[in-house]
């Protein structure tokens, strides 16, 4: 055997090994919400797979409660996906249990280029941090604001939407005629927070480790809504359950004059009743103008197999171009400051109007989550609100009772 042949043979073997190695298929598992399977994201995934031959993205989509069940089971077994979208709050919750990968190293390397954290609305950054470490990146940022039926208001003599609580109540009562309601409240507890925030209520005080929802302001806020339902008969009892559709359906059918909602309801309203004349208004002001913020964040489990690639994909999902494309096509508001200032966004009626509340929107449970007990306190608040709204119990009494219990839990 000649030396040349041997060298050639060796080169061929090595070449095959190398090629064989890189031809090994790798899968990146991503958990997403079924309702956010936007074309823009499908394109991101396609591009990612094209740029990274040998990689396939397993884009699994779920409803939030199902994803919660599956993710908790995954954490218990150590068989986690690589990248997960969460509806808000899970990042801090799981980070506290040590289940998420801290992103500090990634952000240090890539932060400047991608604009994190500077290009993100401030509170969208802090809500994804635990002990000054980054654990998640916000991908959608939403806030709920007033949406009203211009015809119904005009019929009752109002050519502009209400801006204060008194005006709101006036409008609600005036438009509650002929089996219609002035305002359709949402059963989900987070929808009571605009009222609470507007009355200056703080959920949690870290200094005293107590909750603030037993204050007179909180009672006033909840009593206001309860009275609208029971005394003024200007609002129906919300339909019990975990879904959000009730108010939108009443609104679309022209049976409710006002609802509080976010950009997600635009498509159903337009599809359900294209002839409806409606508009978006800023949130009300009582002691202050405020509303609740929400939106999806992305996180990487600590037990993920392919964290680096997950980060690469994450960056693409939250890039400005992706945000623009996704938001303009689907009416979803985004967390980047540069997004909010972009001319296309400002020119878009829906995004512009729903985006304006981002300036005064607040994350409901931010500080509470850091106690690790937010789920139990939330449960207590939910029961309290339900008691007040469904059983028409006096707000202050119920709130004081449940706040005492919450404080007890916090003190454990």
């Amino acid at each position: 055997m000649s030396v040349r042949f041997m060298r050639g043979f060796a080169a061929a073997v090595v070449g095959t090994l190398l090629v064989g190695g890189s031809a090994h298929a790798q899968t990146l598992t991503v958990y997403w919400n079924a309702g956010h399977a936007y074309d823009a994201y499908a394109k991101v995934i396609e591009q990612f797979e094209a740029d990274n031959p040998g990689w396939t993205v397993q884009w699994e989509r779920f409803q939030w409660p199902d994803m919660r069940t599956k993710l908790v089971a995954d954490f218990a077994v150590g068989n986690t996906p690589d990248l997960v979208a969460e509806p808000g709050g899970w990042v801090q919750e799981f980070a506290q249990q040590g289940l998420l990968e801290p992103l500090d190293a990634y952000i240090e390397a890539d932060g400047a280029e991608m604009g994190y954290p500077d290009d993100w609305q401030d509170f969208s950054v802090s809500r994804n941090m635990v002990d000054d470490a980054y654990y998640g990146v916000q991908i959608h940022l939403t806030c709920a604001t007033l949406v009203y039926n211009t015809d119904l208001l005009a019929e009752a003599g109002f050519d502009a939407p209400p801006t204060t609580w008194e005006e709101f109540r006036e409008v609600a009562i005036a438009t509650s005629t002929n089996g219609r309601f002035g305002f359709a409240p949402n059963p989900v507890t987070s929808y009571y927070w605009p009222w609470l925030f507007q009355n200056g209520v703080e959920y949690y005080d870290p200094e005293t480790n107590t909750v603030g929802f037993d204050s007179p302001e909180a009672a006033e806020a909840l009593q206001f809504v309860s009275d609208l339902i029971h005394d003024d008969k200007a609002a129906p009892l919300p339909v019990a359950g975990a879904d959000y559709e009730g108010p939108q359906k009443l609104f679309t059918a022209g049976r409710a004059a006002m609802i509080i909602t976010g950009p997600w309801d635009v498509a159903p309203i337009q599809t359900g009743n294209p002839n409806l004349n409606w508009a978006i208004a800023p949130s009300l002001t009582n002691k202050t103008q405020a509303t609740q913020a929400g939106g999806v964040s992305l996180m990487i489990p600590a037990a993920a197999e392919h964290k680096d690639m997950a980060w690469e994909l994450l960056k693409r999902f939250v890039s400005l171009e992706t945000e623009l494309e996704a938001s303009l096509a689907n009416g979803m508001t985004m967390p980047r400051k540069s997004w909010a200032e972009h001319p296309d966004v400002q020119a878009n009626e829906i995004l512009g109007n729903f985006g304006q509340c981002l300036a005064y929107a607040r994350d409901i449970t931010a500080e509470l989550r850091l106690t690790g007990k937010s789920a139990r306190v939330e449960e207590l608040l939910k029961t309290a609100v339900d008691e007040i709204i469904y059983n028409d119990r006096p707000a202050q009494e119920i709130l004081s009772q449940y706040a005492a219990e919450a404080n007890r839990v916090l003190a454990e």
Partner: protein
Amino acid sequence: MSRKPGGHGPAASLAIYAVLALAVLLAVFPFIYMISLSLQSDADIYSGVPVIIPQTLQFSNYVDIWERAPFVRFILNSFIIAGGITLLHLIFDPLIGYVFAKMKFPGKRVMFAALLSTLMLPFFIRMIPLYLLTAQMGMLNTYQGLILPFAMSAYGIFLMRQFIAPIPNDLIDAARIDGANDLVIYWRIVLPQLRPALATLALLTFVFQFNEFLWPLIVVSSTEMRPITTGLTLFNQEFFTQWNLTATGGVILFLPSFLLFLITQRYFIRSVMMSGMK
């Protein structure tokens, strides 16, 4: 077929038929509504106005659903999983039911009590350790992983035991005297009499497993391995349910169970008559 004794006067007959009519209406109405929803357009379902007969029947929903997701694969998966589980049940449940019904052995009562007790814990409590087990056995996202945890059930065994118990012991004792062991007795004597009971078991097991949601949610990690139940959840938006497509899927989900019911109906009704739940 035995009859309920005595005749009915005309007034009683009318009352009876009225009751039956009401029962039928109540039973079938949500199902009719589901069919109606499956033919509605997006505009109908978002409009907030309750619709029973939509203005335009959107049959295209039935076509769309095949295109929106790998629905054929979902149906296939559902059949494989439910079918596999039903098969295993048919093999093991009657056999174990026979042992408890016709054989004497120490610890029988304790074991039967332990068996029944397995029905008394909700599934999601066993779910996480089961998930761990399945992962350790390397069966995640596989048909085996979906089928094996449901290979037998105390409910099926209990049901079979009730069906087998009334079989006359003389037959069995005679066979024993002739020297046959229990496996042979089971195979030659008991099993042939169980056809209706097996049909019942098959129907109930298949229907139950066909509609199973939680375990497939946990153990399946790729869209292609989903059965219909978890596959349908792909059609919902974050803040609202895509009622029409979900209903379309629901109608499709209903059909196999219904067909199986029609096939086994004649056994199902007569089944207990032979062995008698008395």
